[in-house]
């Protein structure tokens, strides 16, 4: 057999992965923020879209995109919103950022000086300075960069809008940001069409970080990328979170990615949060039948574990006309009369573990460990 030369890693090449050990303070930082108010506190958020019918366009009903959602994000924490199509996770993220105006509820954000503001109630003018505090990483790397602007203009725009008038200053900062996301500073003169999907996503991340936000909302940030590139971007996101002490609100539908990256997970179904718990807890001891069913449905990349794949009967409920009582009851194998008549509230059943299910205490549901027993 011929000899193999192993290539040695260049020192800090761009786009390299950073093999990192979990940060030492990570475990302590995971649970709660520094003893005080959370960074983001969403309370009873609702977003209803009116359905109009008839020649006079009268409102005949509402699509309950986000239906009484409450959660918190603490400093340095990654909270994921996970669910299937129509569950409202993207709309929730948009409400938090005020890309969309919520119908009701509060979005309390803690400013650097300690003051807490309700993002939902601010006017456009008051929102402006807040924009630097929270930013969005989009899903589609091809649509979220203006194809007519080069990277300097794209990443420099937040700086320009917030008063950095000197072009040299902007160039310096953009160079710094490009380095941070693993791209060469020379690239700032190039246009988006010169880059691959993964590289463009790095540019999107660089733009999001330009104003040093404290909260980054990632809306399916890796879903549109090839598998081999997803890992690069996930590593980058983790690395940046550690280095810059960011908080993420990570919206995704892929459970494996969510488990890999989050400290805590909120599972959503048809506009409501059905379970909210620390990651390990949620995946090993799920308390809501839907959470358990989701895990059962994820195809495990192991051909010896085939019988584990199970789907749920029926279809995802219609957010315009959800079932009475618990929205999940038509598909739930454990539904009882109370489930069919009363909507459950999200309540705490364990330390940090919240579930919206009438039967949470009685049920003993399989988590990911139970998937392994089958073969």
């Amino acid at each position: 057999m011929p000899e193999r030369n192993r290539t040695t890693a260049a020192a800090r090449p761009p786009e390299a992965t950073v093999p990192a050990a979990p940060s030492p303070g990570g475990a302590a930082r995971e649970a709660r923020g520094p003893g005080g108010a959370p960074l983001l506190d969403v309370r009873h958020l609702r977003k209803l879209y009116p359905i109009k019918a008839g020649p006079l366009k009268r409102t005949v009903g509402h699509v309950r995109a986000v239906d009484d959602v409450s959660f918190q994000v603490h400093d340095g924490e990654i909270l994921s919103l996970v669910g299937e199509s129509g569950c409202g996770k993207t709309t929730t993220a948009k409400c938090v950022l005020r890309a969309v105006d919520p119908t009701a509820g509060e979005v309390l954000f803690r400013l650097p000086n300690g003051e807490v503001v309700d993002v939902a109630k601010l006017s456009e003018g008051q929102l402006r300075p807040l924009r630097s505090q929270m930013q969005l990483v989009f899903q589609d790397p091809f649509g979220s960069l203006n194809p007519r602007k080069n990277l300097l203009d794209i990443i420099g725009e937040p700086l320009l809008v917030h008063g950095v008038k000197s072009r040299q200053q902007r160039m310096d900062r953009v160079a710094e940001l490009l380095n941070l996301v693993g791209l060469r500073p020379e690239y700032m003169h190039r246009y988006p069409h010169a880059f691959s999907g993964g590289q463009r996503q790095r540019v999107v991340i660089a733009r999001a970080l330009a104003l040093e936000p404290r909260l980054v909302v990632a809306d399916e940030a890796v879903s549109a990328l090839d598998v081999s590139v997803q890992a690069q971007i996930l590593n980058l996101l983790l690395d940046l979170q550690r280095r810059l002490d960011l908080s993420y609100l990570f919206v995704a539908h892929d459970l494996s990615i969510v488990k890999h990256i989050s400290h805590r997970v909120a599972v959503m179904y048809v506009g409501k949060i059905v379970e909210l718990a620390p990651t390990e807890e949620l995946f090993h001891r799920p308390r809501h039948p839907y959470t358990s069913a989701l895990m059962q449905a994820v195809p495990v990349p192991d051909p010896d574990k085939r019988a584990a794949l199970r789907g749920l009967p029926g279809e995802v409920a219609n957010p315009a006309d959800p079932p009475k009582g618990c929205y999940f009851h038509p598909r739930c194998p454990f539904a009882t009369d109370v489930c069919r008549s009363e909507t459950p509230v999200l309540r705490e059943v364990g330390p940090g573990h919240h579930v919206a299910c009438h039967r949470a205490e009685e049920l003993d549901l399989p988590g990911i460990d139970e998937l392994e027993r089958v073969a």
Partner: protein
Amino acid sequence: MTLPTRTAASPAPAPRSPAVSERERGGEPVLSVRDLKTHFRLDEGVVRAVDGVSFDLYPGEVVGIVGESGCGKSITMKSILRLVQPPGRIVGGEIRYRRPEPVGEARRRYKPFEADLARLPPQGRRMRQVRGGDIALIPQEPMASFSPLHTIGEQIVEAIRLHEPMPKARAREVAIAKLREVGMPSPEQRFSAYSWQLSGGLRQRAIIAMALACNPSVLIADEPTTAIDVTTQAQVLELLKRLQADHGSSILFITHDLGVIAQVADHVVVMYLGKVMEQGPVSDIFHRPRHPYTRALLKSMPSLHSEPRVALPTVAGSIPHPLHRPRGCAFHPRCPDFMPGRCDVRVPALSAAGGRSPVACFLHHDEVEGGGHDA
């Protein structure tokens, strides 16, 4: 259907499909692709979308073709069905199809047929008979594949009558039976539904019913679960496996999702930039991958069981454009086991020498594409 609880006994594993033994027994393949080359002649140069792909599909077997964007899996599928439009052309290789003898009552109407599909006129009578009647496609986007102006029932009836002349009433019965077989609730009513009236999961079932309408011996599933939720995906995969067991059909399953491949495939073909990098039985590919690309792909996927928030091992760089195909082995610029002087000069052949299953890598043999050995 009940979800298994923690204390329930593990259910029995799924029965191994009989086809594995067909391949091992050395029987006749249904579809035999040999050195298929489909090139696109553009002003800028020749794009070798499919460049020497070979694999076999046996009766009753599921072969998974897996790869990322630009690997040529879609064009391979289109080439088999002769759907490639100019400036694309099949410039070499053969696609040998042999109609297998059905079991049971259909045996009476069996007419043997064997041809090299690459040589048939694409719009000729024989190819049109094969398309839909012998080899059917389950496309990626069911919404785009149904005409919005006709009911799904009408379209299934049309498909049936194109391949087997029969009175409309009987075709309608056959269509309703197919809808029932794919698990469509209330098939008689749904027969008269339009595709846009159905939810994603039901549309997917409808398109599978249409594909099955003429009892094809080969089903080509082109990313059938990419556009649907994970719980619906599990249902659809379950359905495909059941149909395959009932009819003994072979499935060519094209996807980028390794988890899905692990769940449904018997035999896996890994493609990269128009070539096959490795192929073999599914457990070999997942548990004993030999090609560095396959290994890197498997390692870089986060799964439900991997350690959270640790940097994933990644493949550096991104997939090159086919116009900028690297010299020698297409993967060498990104390969951790790259051997200078060999991998960037000669193209490794897909050879089983040195092991059980074919792999295109000089780490495992020194055969060069086009014959001969690397010195």
